[in-house]
């Protein structure tokens, strides 16, 4: 088989994907099998996949820098001399004793953090959608207003009399 033959017979993943995605879009446009939760789901997945860069707009608005739940524990002390001893006691004695409780709590905190991220994304999605719809409405109302204005102008203009 020469190269031209084998090239001609290649089934392209990308071409198949384009055609499959067109089918999905066509069905959505026709109003079949539209699931309104899907776009929210995609956004949630994307947010969970890159939680590092995700900083919700809401956190900016409430000016809360430290908005995330932090399940990790960090031992610190401001005392210059006794501090090291206190950290040692906390880390080597207190922490192992309450370790089971910490492990239990941190797992719950981890779940809570994911729930929070999810809720933030959904609220932001709703806010964006609401803002977009408001703009659309304003445009439509503006358009209707100008059209009704045009109609009124026509009505108010004096009738032409042909003599």
């Amino acid at each position: 088989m020469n190269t031209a033959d084998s090239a001609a017979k290649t089934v392209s993943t990308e071409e198949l994907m384009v055609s499959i995605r067109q089918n999905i879009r066509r069905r959505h446009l026709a109003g079949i099998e539209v699931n309104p939760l899907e776009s929210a789901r995609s956004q949630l997945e994307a947010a969970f996949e890159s939680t590092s860069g995700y900083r919700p707009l809401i956190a900016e608005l409430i000016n809360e820098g430290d908005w995330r739940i932090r399940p990790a524990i960090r031992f610190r002390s401001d005392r210059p001399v006794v501090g090291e001893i206190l950290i040692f006691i906390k880390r080597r004695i207190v922490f192992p004793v309450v370790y089971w409780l910490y492990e239990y709590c941190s797992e719950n905190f981890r779940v809570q953090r994911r729930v929070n991220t999810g809720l933030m994304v959904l609220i932001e999605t709703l806010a964006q959608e609401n803002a977009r719809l408001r703009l659309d409405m304003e445009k439509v109302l503006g358009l209707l207003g100008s059209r009704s204005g045009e109609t009124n102008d026509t009505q108010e203009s004096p009738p032409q009399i042909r003599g």
Partner: protein
Amino acid sequence: MTPRNRRPRSVDKGLNLAVVVQRYGEGVVGGSEEHCRAIAERLAEKHRVTVLTSRARDYVSWKPECKAGESREGPVLVRRFSNRRRRRTRWFEINEMMLSEDILPEEEETWFRENGPRTPGLLEYLETHGGDYDAVFFWTYRYFPSYFGLPLVADRAILVPTAEDDPAIRLSSLRSFFALPRGYLFLTPEERDLVSGRVDGALAPSEVIGSGLDPVSEDVEDSAAILDRLGIEGAFALYIGRVDPNKGCAAMFWNYLRYLSATKSPIPLVVAGRSVMDIPQSSYIHALGYVSDEEREALLSRARLLIMPSPYESLSIALLEAWNHARPALVNGRCKVLKGQVRRANGGLYYENPDEFVETLSYLVENPETAQALGRQGLHYVEQNYRWPVVMQKVEDFLQQTVAGG
């Protein structure tokens, strides 16, 4: 370029090579460790290879199970160094910070130390004898031996990072660490892009080598008998691997249940692997639990297609194995590595949302000829890129270029 104080050497005459890895030996399960062993044994056909590793076999506890000291294992010399067991509370404490991306730069070194296996003897050996080797390979960046050992022999270090797009890769200290090695061997172009984006300055010379597979020797009667024994009849889609939400299985089941509700004559899903999650009850889902290598081969040889839902992969061996059997794959398109592999091979389809999962799975089931063609293209891709002679030639060429100064 050649290592400091060394004349260029001929690769053909055989080099003195060291391989540093966290665990080593027959029966040690782990993608990186198995990849390392396969390459080390093949390198030993031409070169003198010494493996430097810990005594541990278990990557969770790092319990020292093997004897310390030298032993010959197959064609390679293995030198095991004593290591401490992991102190779980301290590890948990610092790993939590890393996972929640709440770790301070000064704490990152502690993370690498606690990640273990702590082998101070290995570091001392590298410091005193590292210069005796023409090149020192390091497998995976995230463990103690590589993170602390590589800077000691940076001028002759070749890093095989096996990096995934997870929180560990975003540790800030890696920016300077990734600038140290003399060269890199990557599993996929996507992995190279990931590491390139995390390094200060330009990345050292690199090669994408992937991993090797041997051609399958199919015994049709045997595989039929095995599937009979497993209670599997007719066509089926296959998931193979640990059944774990972190591997994308929760989303896969969610998507598959949607597919069931949207399709009149659906294809059953066979799930092969140990499970750490609840599997939905459905007459169309057959969960087999752990399967032997023989059963795994039989399943791959008879599956209509493989589903690979993982969001994180540095190289999917299961995907390559499916193509080795000329089976098409349906992969999670949100994983750059999987999507890249499928697109390069033209070996299947990918999905990025549940609608696409349903549509692509239906397409592959309802168009068997196209599906088979995709599977054959996958096999062709494996033959071109993932046969051991091809992989090892890339490694040898890279050694010639970077170490022997050819």
